């Protein structure tokens, strides 16, 4: 009995060990190494062929040089802070747009809800990359948006949107909106209609019952949605790379440049490890709020 229980637990743990922990250790090790013009482009590598002395030599070659470099060069700090700012602002916008949509879905007639849900999920059926390229077509100088605005006469000069931070925000909000809508919708749909009737009965008008009943009871969905957007956006690379411009500074892009343009794998690994440590904070906060929610529901 016990053996079978352990076997069952062993499967996910092995999965995590092989596909998360081992690669992570490799990246940490890489971040402690030095650059070399070689394949692979770093030194030292771990080998057992030289016996115990070889292993001791290997560990003595590792140092924190790359982290010191990260701290001293303010490009990296600026990139981290700028990513943080972009992630926070786009999460706020996603919430502002996503909440009303989720609210509308939850209050729609029940027979409409599956269709509305479908519309929210539908974009996932097309490649993410293609959708971002489509935005390039919409936002460029001679793109659909500018043509439309010129045609209506609202503007007489095409707007420069593509390759600015505005385009990055548009791309992020568009891409991550479903991750905000779905958890909020799930918590709003569970909301017992008689609670709103009780609030009305006890003297609330519509806006009071929204702020005093609906909002607090959908808090769990809002928190989940915010984390689901904030965490991946912080490390986002494709959107700033394709839609952003020279002034768009995001750590995901820096990471890509270090790896592929500079071929400086050790520094790139150090950037990745620091990013992971930064992400740990919101992930832990998210886990704790989920835990609290579960306890409250029991």
């Amino acid at each position, binding site marked *: 009995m016990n053996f079978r229980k352990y076997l069952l637990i062993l499967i996910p743990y092995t999965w995590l060990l092989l596909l998360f922990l081992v690669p992570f250790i490799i990246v940490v090790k890489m971040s402690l190494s030095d650059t070399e013009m070689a394949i692979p482009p770093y030194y030292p590598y771990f080998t057992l062929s030289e016996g115990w002395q070889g292993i001791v030599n290997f560990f003595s070659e590792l140092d924190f040089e790359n982290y010191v470099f990260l701290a001293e060069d303010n490009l990296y700090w600026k990139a981290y802070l700028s990513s943080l700012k972009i992630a926070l602002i786009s999460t706020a916008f996603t919430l502002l747009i996503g909440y009303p949509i989720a609210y509308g879905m939850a209050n729609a007639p029940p027979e409409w809800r599956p269709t509305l849900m479908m519309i929210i999920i539908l974009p996932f059926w097309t490649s993410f990359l293609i959708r971002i390229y489509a935005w390039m077509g919409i936002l460029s100088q001679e793109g659909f948006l500018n043509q439309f605005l010129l045609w209506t006469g609202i503007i007489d000069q095409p707007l420069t949107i593509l390759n600015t931070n505005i385009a990055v925000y548009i791309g992020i909000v568009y891409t991550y909106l479903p991750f905000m809508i779905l958890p909020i919708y799930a918590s709003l749909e569970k909301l017992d209609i*008689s*609670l709103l*009737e*009780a*609030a*009305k009965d*006890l*003297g609330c008008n519509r806006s009071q019952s929204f702020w005093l009943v609906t909002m607090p009871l959908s808090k769990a969905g809002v928190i989940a949605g915010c984390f689901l957007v904030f965490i991946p956006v912080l490390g986002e690379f494709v959107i700033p790379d394709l839609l952003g411009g020279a002034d768009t500074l995001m750590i995901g892009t820096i990471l890509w440049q270090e790896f592929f343009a500079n071929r400086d794998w050790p520094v790139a690994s150090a950037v990745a490890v620091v990013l992971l440590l930064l992400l740990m904070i919101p992930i832990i906060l998210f886990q704790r709020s989920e835990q609290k929610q579960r306890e409250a529901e029991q």
Partner: protein
Amino acid sequence: MSETDKTTCFEPWNEVGKKPLIEFRGVSKKFGALTAIDNVSFNIYEREFFALLGPSGCGKTTLMRMLGGFETPSQGQIFIDGKDISTIPANQRSVNMMFQSYALFPHLTVADNIAFGLKRSDMPKSEIAGRVDEMIKLVQLGNLGGRKPHQISGGQRQRVALARSLAKAPKLLLLDEPLGALDKKLRQETQFELVDIQEKLGTTFVIVTHDQEEAMTVSSRIGIMDQGKLIQIDTPDRIYEAPNSVRVADFIGDVNLIEGNATTTADDKVIISWAEGQPTLTAQTTTNITDGAKVTFAIRPEKIAMTTDKPTDASNAIEGHIHDIAYLGNVSIYKVRLSSGHMIKAQAANTRRLSRRNYTWEDKVWLSWTDTAGIVLTK
């Protein structure tokens, strides 16, 4: 002595010129093609404990939700204190409702739930805490004020819901199946507490229930609803003893219904012939019955006496055999088969121990009752 007793008796519906607190005038409610409420007119008076009783889907909840402001009548008007309530939005009526699911706010503590309505009212902030304490004492919630709804039992939640709906001291309190979620014993205790609280506060209560025992325990008057119509409004004893139709008689309690043809006599009595080879029944009635009309004679099982020998002085006596016995502890129900095939239920208190019971299966027995024991119904 007996004079003063009569004047203190609470019967506002019999007082001439007494203004009702609530007045329904020709109220109908349609949901699409379905008629939930069909032309209902009645009054509820101040300090009454009025029960709306009926099978599920009879429209009783819709009727109550119209008072609360959650539904609007398709036709007709409802007045509270002489004012047409369609002009007052739900959140400004001095009517509060206790919901069937209790609808307690899960994110607020017991005390905050009770204070919820007070904070929306014009009560000064300094008085709210005192009022909440008062309500907690009234429903005996002790020191549970700081708990969240999911941390207390079902019975305690029911009390919080009651306290919350009473906190604003409404003129009218609506209770939608308030005790439905409680187990039987707790329900019976709570029924008496509900009556005590209602008498103490003097608030008018309207309760919706499908439990006739509950309606009879708590209410001053009962309105029986069936298919969107109020078919009888009366005090619990009148509903039970003098139902106005077969449907009411059948809905409330256990009853034997015997169909037959009536022959009137000079002294307010009717002779009912109902089956070949069975003696006719004699019953007193106050309603006018035409000679030869089809009538239904209704008699409650506990009004029927059962004897081994034919009683000499009873005005009605029929012979049969015991077909089945249902032993309920305090009483037993005997199903007696007549030679005509009819089945009559008689109830007897189990004053002796079961082993010393007088009757058993297939015994020949005589059923008898006086001419005032039953009631003659024409519809």
